[in-house]
């Protein structure tokens, strides 16, 4: 009897895709992005990790939007997407300036705030 029940519950989690699944996926994407920000030294890769975090947030918003049945989540995604794109553009412009000035994009050379 017990084995059947466990299988039932397992099947439930695997088969019944609910809000939790999407939210956990988004959380995992988010922490992946955060790990990238903390661990990688190339400026470009840093910016890409930030994009990853923003994407995970988008996923969360849309999941909630479907779950609650309102469209405001989609609007939020709109805004987030726009701003993320804008921020990527500016960030890349900055990276280009830095490269022109220092000929390096590895942030281990930029510890000027030390002290």
């Amino acid at each position: 009897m017990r084995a059947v029940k466990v299988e039932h519950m397992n099947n439930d989690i695997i088969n019944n895709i609910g809000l939790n699944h999407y939210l956990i996926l988004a959380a995992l994407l988010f922490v992946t992005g955060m790990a990238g920000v903390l661990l990688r030294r190339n400026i470009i890769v840093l910016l890409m990790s930030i994009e990853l975090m923003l994407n995970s947030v988008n996923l969360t918003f849309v999941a909630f939007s479907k779950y609650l049945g309102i469209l405001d989540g989609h609007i939020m995604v709109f805004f987030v997407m726009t701003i993320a794109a804008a921020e990527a553009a500016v960030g890349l412009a900055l990276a280009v300036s830095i490269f022109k000035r220092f000929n390096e994009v590895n942030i281990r050379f930029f510890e000027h705030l030390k002290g």
Partner: protein
Amino acid sequence: MNHSLLMALLILAPFVGFLINGARYKKHSANVAGVIATAAVAISFISAVLLVLDLVAMPVESRKIAVSFFEWMAVDKFKINAGFVVDQISAIMILVITGVGTLIHLFSVGYMHHDKGVAKYFAYLNLFIFNMLLLVLGDNLLVMFVGWEGVGLCSYLLIGFWFTDKEKAAAGMKAFVTNRIGDAAFLLGMFVLFITFGTLNFSELNALAPTVAEASWLGAVTLGTLFLFIGATGKSAQIPLYVWLPDAMAGPTPVSALIHAATMVTAGVYMIVRLNPLFIMAPNTMMVIAVIGAATAVFAATIGMTQWDIKKVLAYSTVSQLGYMFLACGVGAFGAAMFHLMTHAFFKALMFLGSGSVIHAMHEEQDIRKMGGLKKYMPITHITFLLGWLAIIGMPPFAGFFSKDEILAYAFNSPFGSPVLWAAGALGATLTAFYMTRLMALTFWGKSRVPSDIHPHESPAIMTIPLIVLAILSVIGGWIGIPHVIGEHLGHIPNMWEHWLHPVISPIPGWQAIDHTTEWTLMGVSVGLALISAIVAYQFYVKAPETPKKIAESIKPVYNLVYNKYFVDEAYFGGIINPLVNISRNTWYYIDVNFIDKMTYWAGDLMRGMGSMVRSVQTGNMQQYAMYIGIGVVVALSFVVMR
């Protein structure tokens, strides 16, 4: 005239003089500065005369002019007004201060004619008169104390007037510091009296006094008056705080005349006479005062016999005569003390000014071994000095005779006195006659020992006129206090002095009037002793100058002891001053430098170290900062979730 206006003029005229001369302190003109200063004091003198005339016109029961200008402090029960009182005692004082003061200002115009800082000098003199008037006119101990401190300050400024000479500056400092020790005692006395009586006002204190007769040493009145007396020993140069007065001769001679003969040094006597109802109630204090007064009189007289500087002789003479005044206070003869104060002011100021005239003529030479036979060159100075000499040795009918004999009579007869005290006083009188005659002989009489490059001449009129006026006062000044024994034979001349002071002097408990025969005997003995002493001194110093030298040789150790002022200054330095300096120095080094400074450095280093530690968080590594943010988010979230 309005009493408030007169009182304000009296007190403030010298202060205005101080301000004007002080503002012009760089000017060199002695005449202008002198005129301003003398005019200021003369205005004070005229106001004083007018006030006293008004006072005389009042009936005896209410003989007091009291003016209160404003309320100075009022803290709970402690109320002090800026109040001033002219009554019988302060009337005498203000006349002496402003009168003798005006004469000395006139003298100074001549004496300080060539000095560069003459405007500053006159400013200080005026400031002194102002403070002295505050002292004598104040109606409570605190206003008196303001004046007390003020005259101490002016004394310092004037003694060290030629401050570029280190010794003179040191003399000024010695005077001030010694005075301060006395002032500390004065303050303690004020505290004790305030705690006991709740007031510092003279009339209130004197009214409350008869309720507290005391016999013990630790009673409040005894302690309070004892402390006040110690303050008086500082200001009036008695044992043990007299050491500043001989050194104070470093100042200009008119300053010595005014401050250290006639006025400031009498402040202590004045204070005791003011509070005489209180002092009468403390027999132990009276005994202390009488003993110290008599001891000082004899002690200083012995030192005066060996000194060679004309001003030092007069200085020790002043200490000795002040001893007489304290002796009088100690035996209850307050009126006699005031009388001697006044006569002493006349003849001592006269002799100081006379010595100033001599020093001026001798081109700043002060050693009497280099003088002699000056009477030919300076007749006026000689005659006036002679009159002062006769007064101080107590020859009738000059002023000193009446005042000194009254003191000796009271010392013998009063319940507070004793024959021993009288004997000490008589001994002091004998010694006084000796050293004053010695001074006269060595300076004016006999063969001239003046060095050939100095040509002494008489001083100008501006200096001799004050001498003449003071000489006249030395002659007639005693005649307002002729005792009954003499007065009844001269057509019932009353003792005006005693009548004037009668309402404000407490009667001595247990006083019995002195027997006439005894009084005549005492007078005869003291005059006789003085006469013999003077003749002996004349013999020694005019007729046979080798004799004193031989006597000094034969008692060489004793002579050395007295000549070196009994090594008192050295004892003070070795026993008190140097140990204190050493303690200060050690405290500075071991505690301040080694310990406290090290503590502060350590605190600073600690801060710097902590700063470095915290600084290590700022690595400039952006990812570390991001990590910190992340950790913060984790912590915050965990709080939210765990709730």
